[in-house]
């Protein structure tokens, strides 16, 4: 039997008024969000701004006559992002879930709008929208909305269940198909920009959500087989120079030695910086590679600056922070009682950490070159804000998840609002605090 209360129930069972009622009832007993995840994110964002200063002053002076040009902007983005993160950790997930399809459509619209006069073309790619006060990158938004939609659509009860419940099922109501269509739509639009690395990341994130949603094993194997097949066909039809590049990358990834003939300039510079760092680094702001030797030191290759200036200690610490995010995010997903919440948290966590891992992997020449921002640290408004918003949603899920917290809350309900924090007593609109009913949202599994 399915004890899990899911947001779907709220959507399906009650009319709009009813749903609103559920929301208002569900609001009260929520947990505080996961403090570890929150503070690690906050720490990454703030220390990222410091690191960004070091990485960007040279290019700031060279291009904008101000060492603080990027830092000021990033600080504004961080402010907006942190505010949005807290806001997103508070919104009602049921509302979000209900709006997920609409959000996906809006994203698709934005992705189409880059081709309108609002779009901004930079070095042959239309990835930005001219929005005040900064250019918006709709593909960053797409990462969130796509995962929201897929998590939503895949946690809808399966067709058989629906049929047993007497509902009629059309072919287009098949969740996996809808998910695939959504992925195809968004990925196609972004591919058209073109922005290949985002397509890959987006598809990977969506695929992870599909995988976690429990798609059948044979489908999984089929998908893996299809990937392998595409890879083989790709290799078979690849041109000589492409093969050579792959070979060179593969060789240098294994041997840890770059071939200056084939390895791209920025990778050579990036690895040079990382090597120069040594165990403890050359010191904050003392790095040399960012002085216009390393292209886009302030965004795609900021990890190399970390490596050069803070050394192995700094890089491992940074890597550790992403591991903490991974651990907390998956923990939250694991503990979630709701399929949608679980998929959402796991999907978003994967997106954030995978992006970090790809960025770092590129910076240390472990992966082929792609333009990928390092979450929370790299310069870039859309990226920073959207990453913070994603963490905001993970935090939101965390408020619904923890079994222990709920139990503690339930047992110590006499203690204030139950979040373990001191607070002023206040008039509760539902009257006495002590008689609060456990919400269906927090029904625990082991209670029959």
């Amino acid at each position, binding site marked *: 039997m*399915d004890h*899990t209360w899911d947001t779907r129930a709220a959507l399906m069972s009650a009319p709009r008024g009813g749903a609103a009622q559920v929301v208002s009832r569900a609001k009260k007993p929520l947990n505080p969000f996961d403090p570890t995840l929150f503070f690690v994110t906050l720490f990454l964002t703030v220390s990222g701004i410091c690191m960004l200063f070091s990485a960007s002053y*040279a290019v700031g002076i*060279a*291009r*904008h*006559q101000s060492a603080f040009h990027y830092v000021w902007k990033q600080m504004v983005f961080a402010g907006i992002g942190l505010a949005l993160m807290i806001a997103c950790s508070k919104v009602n997930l049921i509302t979000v879930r209900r709006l997920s399809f609409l959000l996906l459509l809006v994203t698709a619209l934005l992705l189409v709008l880059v081709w309108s006069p609002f779009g901004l073309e930079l070095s042959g790619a239309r990835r930005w929208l001219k929005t005040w006060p900064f250019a918006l990158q709709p593909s960053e938004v797409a990462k969130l909305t796509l995962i929201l939609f897929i998590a939503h659509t895949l*946690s809808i009860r399966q067709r058989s269940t629906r049929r047993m419940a007497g509902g009629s099922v059309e072919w287009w109501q098949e969740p996996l198909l809808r998910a695939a269509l959504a992925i195809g739509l968004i990925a196609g639009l972004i591919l058209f920009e073109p922005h290949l690395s985002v397509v890959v990341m987006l598809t990977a994130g969506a695929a*992870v959500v599909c*995988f*976690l*949603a*429990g798609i059948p094993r044979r489908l999984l194997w089929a998908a893996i087989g299809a990937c392998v097949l595409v890879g083989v066909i790709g290799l078979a039809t690849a041109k000589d120079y492409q093969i050579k590049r792959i070979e060179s990358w593969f060789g240098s990834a294994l041997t*840890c030695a770059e071939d200056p003939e084939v390895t791209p300039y920025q990778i050579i510079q990036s*690895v*040079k*910086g*990382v*090597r*120069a*760092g*040594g*165990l403890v680094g050359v010191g904050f702001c*003392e790095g*040399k590679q960012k*002085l*216009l*030797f390393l292209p886009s030191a302030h965004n795609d290759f900021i990890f190399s600056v970390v*490596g050069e200036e803070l*050394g*192995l200690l700094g*890089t*491992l610490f940074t*890597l550790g922070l*992403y*591991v903490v995010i*991974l*651990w907390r995010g*998956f923990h939250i*997903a*694991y503990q979630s*009682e709701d*399929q949608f919440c*679980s*998929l959402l948290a*796991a999907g978003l966590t*994967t997106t954030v*950490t*995978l992006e970090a*891992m790809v960025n*770092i*992997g590129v910076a*240390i020449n*472990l992966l082929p070159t792609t333009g990928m921002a390092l979450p929370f640290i790299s310069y870039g408004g859309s990226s920073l804000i959207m990453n913070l918003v994603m963490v905001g949603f993970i935090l939101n899920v965390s408020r619904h998840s923890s079994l222990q917290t709920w139990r503690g809350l339930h047992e110590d309900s006499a203690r204030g609002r139950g979040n373990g924090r001191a607070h002023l007593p206040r008039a509760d609109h539902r009257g006495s605090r002590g008689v609060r009913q456990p919400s269906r949202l927090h029904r625990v599994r082991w209670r029959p």
Partner: protein
Amino acid sequence: MTTLDETRVRIERLCYVLLIFIGIMAFRLVRLQVLQHDRAGRSETKREKIVPRRAGIYTRDGVSLAVSPEGVRICANPRAVLDKEATAQALIPLLEMSQGELMDALDRTEVGGRKNYFVKLQEMADPETARELEAASLQLWQAGNTASPRAVYGEPFNYREYPRKDFASQLIGFVNCRGDGVEGIEQFWNDMIGGRPGYMEAEVDAVGNPIPNGRRRFFPPEEGSHVVLTIDDRIQFYTEQAAQAVVDAFQPNWVTAIVMNPRSGEVLSMATRPGFDPNNIPERLAGREINRAVNFPYEPGSTFKLVTASAALADLPPDKLAVKVNCKGSIRIGKHTIRCWILAKEGHGHGPQTLSDGIKNSCNMAMVGFGRMLGKEALYHYAEMYGVGEATDLGCPREKRGILPDLRTWDDARLANISFGQGLTVTPIQLLRIVSTIANDGMMMQPYLVKEIRSAEGETVQRFHPKETRRVIPEAVAHQVGAMMERVVAEGTGKLASVKGYRAAGKTGSAEKVVNGRYAPGKFVSSFVGFLPAEDPKLAILVVADEPKGSHWGSVVCGPAFAEIASKSMMRIRFEPTLLAERSSTASTTTSNSPP
């Protein structure tokens, strides 16, 4: 199993996969940062040469022959230019170059596979233009078109100017485009004049700007020192003038004239005509031997008879000296026939000749006779003592030593030839040294060109003094040779060289010229060498003309030039004419005490 349970299982598996990948990355980081730390390579540094201002070259009386005005040249850093079109647009009105040239210059971001941070846009710009350009560069930077406020800049540059143009040009030499002396005094004293360049070494960013907190090392430059020559401005001018007159009259390949103070060895002038303007050096001159006075060895011909004569006077016993050699116009030695010049001119020989007559008439036969009396060892010894085949170490680059054939190769014919100056070579300065030795009572002086070195502030840091090389012949012999030379001017071949008001001593020379190893018919090197006043020599003067047309007699071609240089130079050194009856000898000695 519910879907949620399946999800949890899969979350766990995904987590493991990601952690494995993170582990690989951590391992890679350890490998890169600890194990391969020393492979990182050094940061880029730029070494900037700081060239000190080149010091000047002056005549002994302080006239500038070479100066370095403060100049600015316009340079650009092509790697710092981000928007070439916009940059070119802004700079074109300020520069004297076309759009295409400027674009080409800005395109040179790499030279020979190395990063290039420097192109020269314009030479010798005025400082006002340079300031305007730097202001424009700042604006370009602010507009984001360049990555550095100093993408285009004016840089102080060592320019070299020769205010007297072709005056003593072969002697002074010139500098190359990098400001290094490559010829003449400029080359020989390059280290002294140029000073020692300093260096500024700084770590730079990718566009070549020094890093504010980067490593920096500064080696200050050492200022160059001024070189004051022994050359006298006026005498040099007279010499140039007289040499030019010879060039105009006889169209020789070139004419060299040198004036030397025989008492000290100071070279008072050294002129070669035709000259060139070192401000605008023809390409062909670079690295060529242009200063004929020191790098043209030629067969001296009759002027060398002075060596034979002094050797005879010094070595031969009186009975042999008193012998009169009968000149029949030609003589047969082995299979060679040696002719006297008079045979071709007048069809007969000089007749019986004493040594003095032989010098006066420049008789080859007389010299052959005395040479044979001397023997080859003695003649070789004196030629060697007179410095034939030995560089004068005057202080000029590419000085030639001339050839004194090895004694073992001397046979009778060679002895005969050498006794009248064929079959060996000397440079003009060597020949003048020989005559100066005679003028200086047989004591050879070291010829020199630099009087003193002055620091950049103008203080004398080094002074050069006359230096005796060696005694070649006894004083009495020198006086005897001098007397013979006086006869040459007074009554012999050198009448055209007589100097009004002075007793001059001299010797003509019309040597056959060797071209490609054999004597070329009709090609001569004419010369006249002498000193004055004969009783107390103040100046020794040599005039040499290569392949004069019209006449080849040393007296005709070079004699008048000698006379002109001599008379004007004597006035210059305020040595009053001694042969004027009105002048008392006391008056002349009081004014003669200060040789230049």
